[in-house]
């Protein structure tokens, strides 16, 4: 299958001498929904900057659908749609104009661009605002404007740098639905995020970057299978005072209606429930204590930290 993105040994040293990328190699298949995770300052935006040619690389190479961003830059750029981390539009320009001009830079004639802009403004809930200037939009609308702008030329690869930062929950969810939909229609998507829940919900494959090094590159399913245990919180229907004894599980009573259970991977949730049912303990609801990937993520970063210190 064609690779939507192929990054080879990417290095970046900024002008002030700081090494932001220490040799990152990464492939993303066509049609994938890929998450790039990492703490603040890990180098995610730097990678995206280099892919989109806003940042000059120090060495390495980038190809988008087989076209090199140096030699075949016009083709490579045509395949790519970028939603950057920071707002970067002219706030004094009406948003309809922002979209049509962006299409113009890709050589799309105005009449055609107007149709596309109308379609995207409707889809992203910005139609009522089309005559407003960008500065009159709320934060969530500005994000959606940047998504619409990135899609004006119908790119095959869409890269979003923290698209849901500072966006409220409701809009975040509609944004997720929208991204799932365009991915299903064939657009390859790469996004960076802080929210593990977001990555788990949306993405099939995942790369984890820390201190300018890719420390993990795998599928979401494989990553989850590595979880040794999961911690659940159960809300009980009746109050209990004595801690139930389920072999192999570690239980704690948070209060007389709330039970915390640490369930090892090899134990089925059924065992827990059959025990509780037998003892007339009614469970009203159950949830993960934190996002289940969070601990795994923290462990990986700790390990990479330790490796970094050792070297």
């Amino acid at each position, binding site marked *: 299958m064609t690779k939507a993105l192929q990054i080879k040994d990417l290095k970046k040293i900024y*002008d002030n001498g700081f090494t932001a990328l220490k040799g990152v190699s990464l492939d993303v298949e066509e049609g994938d929904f890929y998450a790039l995770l990492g703490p603040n300052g890990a180098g995610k935006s730097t990678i995206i900057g280099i892919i989109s040619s806003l940042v000059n690389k120090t060495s390495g190479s980038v190809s988008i659908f087989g076209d090199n961003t140096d030699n075949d830059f*016009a083709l490579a750029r045509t395949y790519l749609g970028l939603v950057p981390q920071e707002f*970067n539009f002219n706030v004094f*320009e009406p948003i309809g104009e922002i979209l049509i001009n*962006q299409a*113009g830079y890709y*050589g799309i004639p*105005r009449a055609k661009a107007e149709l596309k802009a109308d379609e995207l403004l409707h889809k992203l809930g910005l139609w009522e605002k089309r005559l407003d200037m960008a500065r009159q939009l709320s934060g969530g609308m500005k994000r959606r404007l940047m998504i619409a702008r990135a899609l004006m030329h119908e790119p095959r690869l869409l890269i979003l740098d923290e698209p849901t930062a500072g966006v409220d929950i409701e809009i975040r969810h509609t944004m997720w639905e929208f991204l799932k939909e365009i991915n299903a229609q064939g657009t390859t998507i790469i996004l960076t995020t802080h929210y593990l829940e977001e990555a788990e919900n949306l993405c099939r494959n995942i790369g984890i970057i820390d201190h300018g090094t890719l420390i993990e590159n795998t599928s979401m399913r494989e990553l989850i299978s590595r979880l040794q245990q999961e911690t659940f919180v159960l809300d009980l229907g009746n109050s209990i005072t004595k801690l139930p004894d389920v072999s192999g599980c570690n239980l704690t009573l948070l209060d007389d209606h709330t039970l915390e259970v640490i369930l090892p991977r090899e134990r089925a949730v059924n065992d827990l429930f059959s025990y509780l049912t037998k003892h007339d303990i009614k469970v009203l609801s159950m949830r993960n204590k934190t996002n289940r990937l969070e601990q795994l993520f923290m462990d990986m970063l700790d390990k990479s930290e330790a490796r970094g210190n050792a070297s």
Partner: protein
Amino acid sequence: MTNSEKITAFRTIVVKEFLRFIRIWVQTVLPPVITTALYFIIFGNLIGSQIGDMEGFRYMDYIVPGLIMMAVITNSYGNVVSSFYGSKFQRNVEEMLVSPMPNYIILCGYVAGGVARGIIVGLAVTLISMLFSELHVYNGWVLVSVFILTSILFSLAGFINAVYANSFDDISIVPTFVLTPLTYLGGIFYSISLLPEFWQTASLANPILYMVNAFRYGFLGITDIHLSVSYTIIIVFIIVLYSFSMHLLNKGKGIRT
């Protein structure tokens, strides 16, 4: 990109640039018109009548070409420097940088925007001057070509200024401390033959002198400098500034990190 796609991209920048300064015409088109009208009233009417003739022309008629040139120079320069710096400042320059459009289209688009402003303001100032002076056109070709070339030259200069600028101060330093003095000393208000020998020679180092004189030739048929020298200097400047602008764009100076 195909040629027709490139033309679409170019047209997009030009239209965007045109609408930008038209939208804020009170800041962009009106001030030079008012300033020029004041020059005409003060130098032309009030003081000019005391001065008498300059090189055989009424003083008012003598300064009209230079005043139009001055408006063209400051407005072409000002349009590109503030627009391109503004798009760096708000980062919307990135909209162009991620697109497949080649750098020369970006540069030509901004230059064409500067020329458009030069034309609009130049025409407005010319219309105002017709209230005060009877304009004669001695050579229309010279007039139009010097007008456009000067506008291109200073649009390019404004572009370079914007690339290097890191603050709004940086975009007013050059116009205030370089452009304005050179313009005033560029033979708008006098013929350099009136100057002492040393200052006549010194004036020849001022590129604006060549444009003002060539432009005045288009109206009045007189010039301190041979036309071919003027054209050569203007064209050499354009080539140098264009090459340097392209070099900066290709390096990503000030726009790619």
